């Protein structure tokens, strides 16, 4: 049958057309063998774009379609469905990427980009010419979901999925779930204490029969594919038998070792056997091997002796657990920037310069100061300056806006006004209060008499110029609205530090094959239309691991990701690779080389027929056997040597000058 190819070149707005000459490219495509029609259009993935393909299939009798646009991971499915709707087997549609690997990466050289695109289009036409119609195959979906990270994002996702009566594994690396939200005082803009709204959800996690909680654990390996992932989880030894422990506290009361509490950012001490905070879930202590005398020198057994239920087990070892899941949701959260390197703000040098996470702990009713804001000498501050954008919106540190600092800074101001009637100065660059109820909250703070000073602070110093500055910290800067230099003496300074990607981001991205954007946060599949999807089907990223956001936005994303997982489970099947290996029975000599190399045991030699037989249900279409076959009897469907040879011919042709 005569092969009739339609080539469709997408502008992607200006993402492609802005960097290469789509008209020349279309003209070139039109000149290629077997190409019946070549067209270019603003957005091929839009309805009119798809209709263009459908109409051409019907009217011009096309039997092959090549769409030249973005990566096939984004829209191959869209275009295959369009072809199917017009009666063409979806496997006869192919894509040539001219955006990710061409226009976007050669955006300063239109001629080179156009010529490379010509080669990609010519090779794409060759690829699609050799394609045969295939039948779409499906694999079942494992109904379990793996959620990584037990902050509010992970908790919300897990509870939503558990509500649909499907199993969730939640893996948290810390001894307790709760994440960053558990460390907060009150939440903006309605000033509910964070723990009041979080604790019931944390308890639900234990109560739900559908949630399997794995705290003090980390995912070390992920394999498989959408619908059928396998994860290896390293469950660290707590050295406390969870079945026996009743959290009486005898162990940590007796433990002689004191260490700075990570949960309280060093504002309080914890023991070597500890639970991170009183509301911890599970409420079972862990032994910190780095500081415990038993593990350091081997001679201390005080906690074991103190435990009335004999729950302390020094012999407990790390466990490796394997779980299977259909979808994976990554909710690993964020770190806050350490402001020590920003020396002009004096963090670490002056006692009463503190960071926003430290203030949150002080403001928390169950925190180290019982909700009282105190200076280092335990007195109450009468004046406080809050410096915004510490490390955020700063080319030397983090270029992006952390999105929550304006609002929590206002929250601190109101808290300080209401509880201490302190003088509060907001040292801001721009006030960004864009959420629901946020602008109103800003107005309330302003009405309450909080001082707003616009301008980036130059320095925090204790060098006084006047008597009233004595014993105080002085904020030095410029008020850009008044156009004057200012010196504001205060008792306490709070640095609203930037949110930044987790220190372990590299490790996490390797395990879950996540990409990172330039700011270092995990990259979503599409910034607008698929904000929780990632480049790997079936893996989703939610909350602050994907970018700074507040609790409401995090919960919205988490709910969205849960819906995506439930969507997968309720569908019950995922499309599988249709292009399996096939055997040319005329050529096969039953040597069995293929049998030995297949990683899935999908090929067997039938001794009676003297032929290799592919089990299509097991074959994943990797093509390893095709290379091993000495007589080239094995081929991957729609990916054969002839096709590749033609592609190589097109790729090595001379394109230089074609777009000049």
């Amino acid at each position, binding site marked *: 049958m005569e092969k009739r190819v339609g080539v469709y070149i997408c502008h992607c707005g200006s993402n492609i057309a802005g960097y290469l000459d789509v008209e020349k490219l279309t003209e070139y495509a039109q000149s290629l063998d077997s190409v019946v029609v070549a067209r270019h259009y603003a957005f091929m993935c839009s309805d009119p774009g798809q209709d263009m393909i459908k109409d051409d299939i019907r009217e011009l009798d096309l039997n092959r379609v090549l769409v030249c646009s973005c*990566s*096939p*991971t984004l829209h191959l499915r869209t275009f295959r469905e369009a072809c199917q709707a017009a009666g063409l087997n979806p496997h006869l549609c192919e894509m040539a*990427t001219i*955006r*990710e*690997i*061409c226009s*976007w*990466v*050669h*955006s*300063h*050289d239109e001629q*080179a*980009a156009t*010529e*490379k695109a010509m*080669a*990609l289009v010519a*090779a794409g036409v060759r690829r699609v010419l050799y394609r045969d119609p295939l039948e779409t195959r499906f694999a079942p979906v494992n109904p379990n979901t793996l959620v990584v990270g037990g902050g509010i994002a992970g908790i919300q996702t897990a509870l939503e999925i558990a509500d649909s009566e499907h199993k969730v594994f939640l893996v948290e690396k810390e001894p307790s779930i709760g994440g960053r939200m558990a460390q907060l005082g009150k939440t903006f803009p309605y000033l509910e204490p964070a723990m009041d709204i979080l604790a019931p959800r944390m308890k639900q996690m234990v109560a739900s029969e559908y949630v399997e909680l794995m705290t003090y654990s980390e995912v070390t390996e992920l394999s498989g*594919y959408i619908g059928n992932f396998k994860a290896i989880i390293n469950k660290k030894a707590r050295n406390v038998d969870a079945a026996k422990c009743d959290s009486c506290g005898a162990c940590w009361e007796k433990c002689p070792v004191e260490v700075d509490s990570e949960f309280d950012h060093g504002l309080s001490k914890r023991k070597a056997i500890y639970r991170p905070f009183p509301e911890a879930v599970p409420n079972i202590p862990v032994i910190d091997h780095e500081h415990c005398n038993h593990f350091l020198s081997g001679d201390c057994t005080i906690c074991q002796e103190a435990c009335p239920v004999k729950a302390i087990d020094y012999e407990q070892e790390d466990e490796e657990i394997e779980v299977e899941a259909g979808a994976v949701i990554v909710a690993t959260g964020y770190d806050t920037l350490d402001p020590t390197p920003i020396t002009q703000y004096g963090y670490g040098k002056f006692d009463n310069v503190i960071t926003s996470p430290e203030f949150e702990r002080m403001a928390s009713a169950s925190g180290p100061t019982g909700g009282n804001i105190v200076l280092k000498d335990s007195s109450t501050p009468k004046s406080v300056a809050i410096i915004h954008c510490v490390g955020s919106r700063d080319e030397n540190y983090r270029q992006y806006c952390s999105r929550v600092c304006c609002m929590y800074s206002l929250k601190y101001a109101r808290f300080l006004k209401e509880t201490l009637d302190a003088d509060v100065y907001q040292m801001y660059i721009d006030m960004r209060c864009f959420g629901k109820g946020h602008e109103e909250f800003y107005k309330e703070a302003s009405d309450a008499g909080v001082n707003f000073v616009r301008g980036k602070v130059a320095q925090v110093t204790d060098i006084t110029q006047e008597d009233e500055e004595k014993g105080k910290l002085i904020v030095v800067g410029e008020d850009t609205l008044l156009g004057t230099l200012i010196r504001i003496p205060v008792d306490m300074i709070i640095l609203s530090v930037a949110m930044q990607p987790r220190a372990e981001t590299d490790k996490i*991205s*390797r395990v879950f*094959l*996540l*990409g*990172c*954007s*330039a700011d270092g946060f995990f*990259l979503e599949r599409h910034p607008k239309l698929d904000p929780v999807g990632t*480049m*790997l089907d079936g893996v989703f990223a939610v909350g602050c691991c994907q970018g700074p956001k507040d609790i409401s936005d995090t919960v919205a994303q988490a709910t969205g990701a849960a819906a995506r997982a439930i969507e997968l489970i309720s569908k019950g099947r995922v499309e599988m*690779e249709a*292009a399996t290996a096939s055997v040319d029975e005329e050529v096969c000599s039953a040597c069995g080389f293929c049998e030995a*190399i297949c*990683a*899935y045991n999908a090929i067997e030699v039938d001794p009676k027929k003297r032929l290799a037989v592919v089990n299509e249900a097991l074959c*994943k*279409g*990797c*093509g*390893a056997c*095709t*290379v*091993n076959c000495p007589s080239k009897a094995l081929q*991957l469907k729609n*990916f054969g*040597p002839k096709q*590749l*040879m033609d*592609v*190589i*011919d097109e*790729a*090595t*042709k001379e394109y*230089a000058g074609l777009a000049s």
Partner: protein
Amino acid sequence: MAEGNNGFEPKIIGFLCNWCTASAADLAGTTRAQYPPNLHPVRVMCSGTVDPVYLIKSLLSGADAVMVGGCHPGDCHYVSGNYKARRRMAMLQNIFESLGLDANRIWTRWISASEGPEFAAAVREITEETRKQGPNPLSTDWAL
């Protein structure tokens, strides 16, 4: 050959595994990394499906260098395809060396889906090295 290559723009063909290196190439694009246009990427399902014949054919047809890109060893989407690729590439390089051909025109790179910048750097490096090596004599002298 290294001298007198002024204006020589090498042609490079990269066979990129769908799951790792081709995704890294997509990511490099998404982050707008810039690299030379000399490499023509060919998306394949797995580095283990790249027949050495394709590389030989590329070099005979006019490619000045070839690259195979796969997942990190131990990380293959298809269990062990990249180990197979690694062995085949080593073998092919050995054969090239014993025949007195340029084995250093055959590149193997393990670049995971999250390593967009590494992909861009690999293309820059291979292009730069090939520019120094000059045109591939297999395609010009043998004219097959």
